[in-house]
């Protein structure tokens, strides 16, 4: 018997939240992936590079979480247990480098929810978009993620 999810979450905008990028978190993230570029890890090398400091790897904005707008909150809103979800798709657009010591504002909303028959049974697809802006109010990055719920 498939579970029901609360599709009224479609269109919901979560409260904007701020994240401060820590130098050590950039390095921890790059090392966890096994990407050992000195432009992520070595302050001295990066100081002489094009940005004068280290920058974050392309998928780093996935760490921009907030207890008020994270996957746990989404799952509660949908009425879904964490064991039922899979990551379906993910996209990042980058407009400016993400730098240590900067504070960014994140706006996260649920742009779409739809259901479809999958190979292993009925699935729901939940699309979220997060826009990241900097202190100048410039868009730094946009991320779009699809969470798949096994119904």
């Amino acid at each position, binding site marked *: 018997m498939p579970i029901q999810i609360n599709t009224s979450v479609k269109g919901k905008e979560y409260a904007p939240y701020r994240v401060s990028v820590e130098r050590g978190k950039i390095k921890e993230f790059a090392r966890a992936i096994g990407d050992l570029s000195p432009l992520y890890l070595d302050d001295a090398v990066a100081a002489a590079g094009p940005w004068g400091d280290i920058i974050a*790897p392309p998928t780093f904005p996935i760490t921009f*979480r907030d207890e008020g707008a994270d996957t746990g909150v989404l799952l509660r809103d949908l009425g879904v247990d964490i064991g039922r979800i899979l990551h379906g798709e993910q996209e990042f657009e980058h407009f400016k480098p993400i730098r240590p010591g900067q504070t960014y504002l994140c706006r996260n909303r649920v742009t779409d929810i739809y259901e479809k028959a999958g190979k292993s049974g009925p699935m729901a697809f939940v699309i979220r978009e997060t826009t990241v802006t900097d202190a100048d109010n410039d868009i730094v990055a946009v991320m779009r993620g699809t969470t798949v719920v096994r119904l």
Partner: protein
Amino acid sequence: MQYAKVYAEDVQVGSEMPPLVKPPIEQIQLTRYAGASGDFNPIHQDATFAKAAGMGDVFAHGMLSMGFVAQSVTDWFGVGTVRKVGVRFAALVRLGDVVTCRGKVVAKRPSKDGDGPSLVDLELWAENQKGEKVITGKATAALISRG
């Protein structure tokens, strides 16, 4: 906003990315990635939980494999060149799997103002040791000219 490793003149439609072969996936890497990313879903850490959820065993965060794919682009073109990267997670990556990231250039466009970097579109994929695609995707990178 880039640190050129490869210039726009160096790649053409059809140019192939040097494959990036990652070491076999170990549990400790999934634990490190959980800490680094903040994704503590027990399905990546706890085999009992993963079995109870019907997934057989733990599997890697999709975002870890996407990190590999993004690295394959920056290893080739240079850090800071990625303007857009998008993937579909096609199959689960399990403990012991060896992920190889591959790609090729599918388009090259001059910058709109004629003065900025060229935009290079890539088709990307990652496969496991059996040759099964675990990720398919695309990226757009900005490459400057030799000038």
